[in-house]
């Protein structure tokens, strides 16, 4: 009886499905969030009701949560309910759960909403990848988020298993209070937001693959490890071949496989299944535009940008970078100075997007040659695939402008 919605819950579900289909029919969206909002307004407990008797994985982080959600869904290899990219708050979760009867669920979850969603869904596994600075003009500073995660995980039910990145001190700080934790040793190059200890504010000492603080806070012992393309989870060792680029994605796959292993899927099987992921909401895909092939790379903040720049082929591919500073991007492009564009010295960058002059100034001071593109028709004929790096709304603009 307990899993049957209350009359109010049934009404909320009907309203939600009606709005979803209306929104799709009228072409006002993919029809997820609008319906979810209506449903939640009628029955605030809807998310909790819809979560009952399901196996639920939540994925949260500053970077990589959309990709890791997609890898987890593919890795599970059967009917899985999941939310659309970007719809990662309760309204999106309600919409995803209402649209599918699948008992297996993977939900990408906004960092700030994670505590609320943990409480509502009572998940089996929470995957925590990283925390770093992102859109500081509208989001909370990262240490405050780590604090909220910690408080939430200390109260969570004891069936919860946390799969956490042991190389990010902020994630470790948030996770260590949980009852059961699977620590993962994955490459994490961005360390600028956890230089001082989240526990005592003293400085964290780092040396080859480990870190510690004088207060005793230190990198925990890991049961999941990544070495190049080899992923080791407990005693299992698997060579991974993904169809998405970057060492950071091998780490994302390792963490997804660890979560699925907790739920009974062998890593050799889940990691093989993950090969079917080749592009997520356009990310990492090749798109066509005016006879050019564009390699679409989304980077929203310094940690994400640095990881992508490191993964670029050193070859002669053209590099286009598009930067906007609209509300969804964060209206302050100061973060461009936290990206090590210096590594592009010797290459030429075409500067695109609303804030191309901010980018050009940054590149000029980095001694990288650049061209400010005021007119898209003036772009040169391509010699090979163009690497197009763009932040959030600039990426959407280019997805609309280009075709498959």
């Amino acid at each position, binding site marked *: 009886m307990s899993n049957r919605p209350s009359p109010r819950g049934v009404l909320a579900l009907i309203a939600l499905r009606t709005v979803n289909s209306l929104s799709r029919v009228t072409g006002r969206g993919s029809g997820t969030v609008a319906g979810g909002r209506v449903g939640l307004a009628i029955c605030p407990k809807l998310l909790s009701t819809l979560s009952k008797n399901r196996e639920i994985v939540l994925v949260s982080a500053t970077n990589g949560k959309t990709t890791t959600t997609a890898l987890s869904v593919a890795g599970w290899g059967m009917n899985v309910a999941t939310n659309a990219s970007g719809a990662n708050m309760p309204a999106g979760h309600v919409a995803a759960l209402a649209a599918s009867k699948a008992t297996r669920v993977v939900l990408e979850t906004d960092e700030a909403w994670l505590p609320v969603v943990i409480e509502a869904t009572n998940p089996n596994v929470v995957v925590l990848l990283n925390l770093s600075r992102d859109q500081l003009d509208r989001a909370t500073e990262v240490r405050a988020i780590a604090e909220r995660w910690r408080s939430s995980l200390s109260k969570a039910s004891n069936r919860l298993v946390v799969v956490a990145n042991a190389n990010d001190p902020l994630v470790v700080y948030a996770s260590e209070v949980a009852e059961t934790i699977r620590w993962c040793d994955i490459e994490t190059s961005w360390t600028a937001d956890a230089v001082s200890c989240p526990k005592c504010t003293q400085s964290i000492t780092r040396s080859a693959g480990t870190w510690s603080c004088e207060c005793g806070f230190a990198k925990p012992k890991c049961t999941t490890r990544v070495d190049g393309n080899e992923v080791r989870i407990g005693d299992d060792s698997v060579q991974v071949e993904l169809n998405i680029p970057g060492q950071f994605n091998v780490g994302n796959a390792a963490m997804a496989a660890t979560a699925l292993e907790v739920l009974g899927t062998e890593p050799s099987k889940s990691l093989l299944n993950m090969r079917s992921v080749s592009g997520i909401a356009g990310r990492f895909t090749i798109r066509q535009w005016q006879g050019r092939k564009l390699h679409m790379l989304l980077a929203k903040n310094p940690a994400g940008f640095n990881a992508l720049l490191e993964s670029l082929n050193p070859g002669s591919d053209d590099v286009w970078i598009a930067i906007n500073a609209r509300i969804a991007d964060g209206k302050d492009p*100061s973060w461009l100075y936290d990206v090590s564009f210096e590594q592009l010295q010797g290459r030429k960058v075409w500067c695109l997007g609303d804030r191309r002059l901010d980018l050009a100034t940054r590149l000029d*001071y980095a001694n990288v040659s650049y061209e400010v593109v005021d007119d898209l028709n003036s772009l040169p004929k391509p010699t090979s695939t163009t690497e197009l790096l763009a932040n959030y709304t600039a990426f959407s603009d280019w997805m609309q402008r280009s075709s498959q």
Partner: protein
Amino acid sequence: MKIALIYPELLGTYGDYGNALALSQRSTRRGIDVEVMSVAITDELPEADLYLLGGGEDGPQRLAVDLLKKTSLSQRVSKGAHVFAVCAGLQILGNSFSVEGDDAYEGLSLVDVETTRGVVRSVGELFAQVGENKLVGFENHGGVTSLGRGVAPLGNVLHGRGNNGQHDGFVTDRIWATYAHGPVLAMNPWLCDEVITKVTGRTLSPLSTVADQLYAERFTSLSSR
């Protein structure tokens, strides 16, 4: 010119490395030798002509001020060194500041100013009249700063909040401070050149870069609000 970027791991939340970069590039391109030293929290404070203080979150800001109290920064400034400070760096230079909660935390007292916690955070573009020029930038802080008697503001706010909606920052013989954070010197080439001129005593030749276009674009955008 020796530039010391102080504790970038604590005071570097908003691209504050941009100021060191702009100063060094705009000097080097005019043939002025520049050395930029990044001072880690475990390092001794090196001798420098110009110390840069950036923005930071509450915990790191308190750690930075605790560490700086143990250094010779005050003596070096009284002997002729300069300071350019933004955001949390600005607050640290005063007598006290309050961050989490309303408890006042003791600052370096290099300048007679005090910062209390504002009712709301000041977040958005900042536009201020600084002498003959206008400063463009972005602010994101929770402080309200009041200047002691005889302390001059850096500029008058035209758009945004700055110290209190009226003034932004402060300026003394050897110290500049503004709430425009991160790469404010990269975005305001005229201010960057003013700082270089003051610190080196050199007359600078004109330098045209794409930063001029960026400045003009932000200037136009902010003038129309």
